[in-house]
């Protein structure tokens, strides 16, 4: 009897080794934690189930921002990078310049049905550098305005459809904040320290005035754009100065102010949609929430946007086998084709067939704010820009202090310009 078991166990072990050899393992790195991380894990599980015996994704989640990109760069340089990874399209210029990314040929892409045709043109091109494709878009994400329906109703700021009204125009927005002050500790919560939200809001407000961040000739803030930038910073600073927004508040704190019901409005990325949705589903939110596109403070609608995409690191000294490459392309393609689930994480799918599907068009609250995609302003294309870049640092050094009144708006922009120009030269 014992012998029988031994043989059974042995053969099972042998079988499983055989299976493992046949399947291609794809090492995956991402920086997705929190609400959208949960959804990505579900997607990966679904992928692995559908591809059982063929492809297995082995995911690892690293810390967002500088830690992630530093690790990618150093590990790729010694051939220890992953097979595929998530990557901000805003960071592609810097990634290519530092040699961290491997190009993906058009033939390879078309072999799994991916080409510029199935993405928005601007989105697709954001993954390119000097004509070569380095990243495949996965989503467009932006910032939106979360709101507490109960508080807005109280202040008379909801229209007949139950959507916020009267928030467009910088003065109107301030007036609305004043109305909301009675019912909230801070009418507007947003991150007011470091980089991140301050950059995203600044860039949106700047874009609404057609400001140029980086001119063709390499000048940061060309002269005619300086007053626009100052105006954007002044507007942001006025929220803190007027006591509408909390000073020196970090990202997590700004989210908590809204979810705990202490703020009526919250400016943050679409990736916090799952947080709200999950809290509401568990009945822990305590109020009804909604989200709309960022109001138009100035001349026309415009919202900062970036994209998550997929990229293959330039693993030095480690040639990718054709089988591995096929598996990686399958992963990228499958993820895009199943990106409706990713839309659940608040993002707008990059893959046009998904974005134009009936299911997405009726998905809430995405449908309400997906108009922003038409007026999105993407990060400047520069090796100094993108997530965890010198531009992000400059925001922490100049714009955030200006929001908190530690620096004048004019002074902040002048110094930021000088600093970035200095680093570019």
């Amino acid at each position, binding site marked *: 009897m014992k012998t029988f078991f031994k043989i059974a166990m042995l053969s099972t072990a042998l079988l499983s080794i055989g299976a493992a050899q046949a399947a291609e393992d794809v090492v995956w790195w991402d920086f997705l934690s929190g609400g959208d991380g949960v959804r990505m894990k579900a997607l990966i599980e679904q992928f692995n189930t559908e591809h059982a015996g063929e492809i297995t994704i082995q995911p690892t989640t690293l810390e967002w921002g*500088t830690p992630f990109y530093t690790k990618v760069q150093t590990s790729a340089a010694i051939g220890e990078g992953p097979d595929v990874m998530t990557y901000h399209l805003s960071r592609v210029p810097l990634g290519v310049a530092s*040699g961290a990314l491997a190009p993906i040929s058009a033939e390879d892409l078309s072999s799994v049905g991916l080409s510029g045709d199935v993405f928005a043109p601007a989105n697709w091109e954001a993954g390119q550098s000097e004509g070569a494709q380095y990243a495949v878009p996965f989503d467009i994400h932006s910032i939106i305005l979360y709101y507490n329906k109960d508080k807005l109703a109280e202040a008379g700021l909801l229209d007949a459809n139950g959507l916020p009204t009267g928030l467009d125009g910088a003065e109107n927005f301030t007036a609305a904040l004043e109305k909301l002050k009675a019912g909230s500790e801070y009418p507007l919560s947003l991150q007011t320290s470091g980089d991140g939200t301050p950059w995203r809001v600044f860039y949106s407000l700047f874009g609404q005035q057609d400001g140029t961040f980086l001119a063709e000739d390499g000048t940061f803030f060309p002269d005619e754009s300086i007053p626009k930038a100052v105006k954007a910073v002044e507007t942001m600073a006025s929220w803190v100065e007027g006591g509408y927004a909390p000073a020196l508040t970090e990202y997590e704190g700004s989210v908590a102010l809204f979810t705990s019901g202490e703020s009526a409005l919250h400016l943050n990325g679409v990736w916090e949609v799952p947080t709200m949705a999950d809290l509401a589903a568990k009945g822990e939110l305590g109020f009804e929430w909604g989200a709309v596109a960022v109001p138009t403070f100035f001349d026309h609608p415009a919202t900062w946007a970036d994209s998550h995409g997929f990229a293959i690191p330039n693993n030095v000294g480690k040639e990718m086998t054709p089988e591995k490459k096929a598996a990686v392309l399958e992963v990228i393609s499958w993820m895009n084709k199943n990106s409706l689930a990713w839309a659940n994480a608040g993002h707008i799918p990059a893959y046009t067939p998904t974005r134009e599907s009936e299911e997405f068009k009726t998905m809430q609250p995405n449908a309400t704010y997906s108009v922003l995609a038409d007026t999105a302003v993407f990060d400047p294309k520069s090796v100094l820009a993108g997530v965890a870049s010198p531009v992000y*640092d400059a925001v922490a050094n100049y714009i955030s202090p200006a929001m*908190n009144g530690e620096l004048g708006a004019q002074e902040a922009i002048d110094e930021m310009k000088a*600093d970035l120009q200095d680093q570019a030269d």
Partner: protein
Amino acid sequence: MLRNHSRETAVALLFVLPFVLIYGVLFLWPTVQMVLLSFTDAPLIGPGKWIGIENYVEMFDDRRFWTSVRNTAYFVALTVIPNTLIGLAIAMMVSRLKGWQQSIILAMFFLPYILPVSVVYRIWNWMFNLQFGIMQYPLTWIFGEATPVFRTQWMFMPAVAFVTIWWTCGFNILLFLSGLRSISTDIYEAAALDNASRWTIFRRITWPLIWPVTALVLTIQLILQLKIFDQVYLFVQGGRPDPSMVLVQYIYNQAFQKNEGGYAAAVSVALFVIVIVFSVLQFQFLRARGEK
């Protein structure tokens, strides 16, 4: 007995060889490489073009480099001597205790030292938290309102220095305590019979006799604090990094964020020189004082 000298030399070399190899491979070679790298425009990884002293010329003209130098010097001033004096003071108090009481108190002071810097950062970030931090009680009492210590420019360095002292003084206490223990009790008894007051005993007996340990602690501290990085890097997260930038942080920033390997190497060489010059100078000065 006649000895075979060349044979003895060979054996001696054989014994020294492993150290020489390890020292050469792990210290000398990388150091030489770093110096060579500083004369190139290399990225973080991979070779670069030889550009002579261009990096150094640029460095002397680099506003952010000088900010880092100033901040590092400021941090050294805030920590080295205070940390040493506090360590000595606490060691003198602890040395008055006996047996298990001494062990417990010593363990309490030493405990922070075994914590990793990330934990130290978490603890003090909470302690100073604007909404919930216990340190806000005294801060509110002093400043009349809750104070975001790590977001207030002039408080940042002193606060990080304070946390650093809290974190590391346990080690200094240990060094001082062993120094104090090596002073024979007879000497204190002789001083007691010699009519020495407490202050006289400290000034004329303890302080001179503990001086070699003090010089050692000061030098270790100087080298350590010139290389400050972790605490400043962690506490500035989510804040304004530039005004409190220190040298190692600047090297990290240039190498890992800006991909400027050659320039980062030049700044590293500058720091290397600063550390060597200052620690040698200080040690010589302290030794000279001790011999006086």
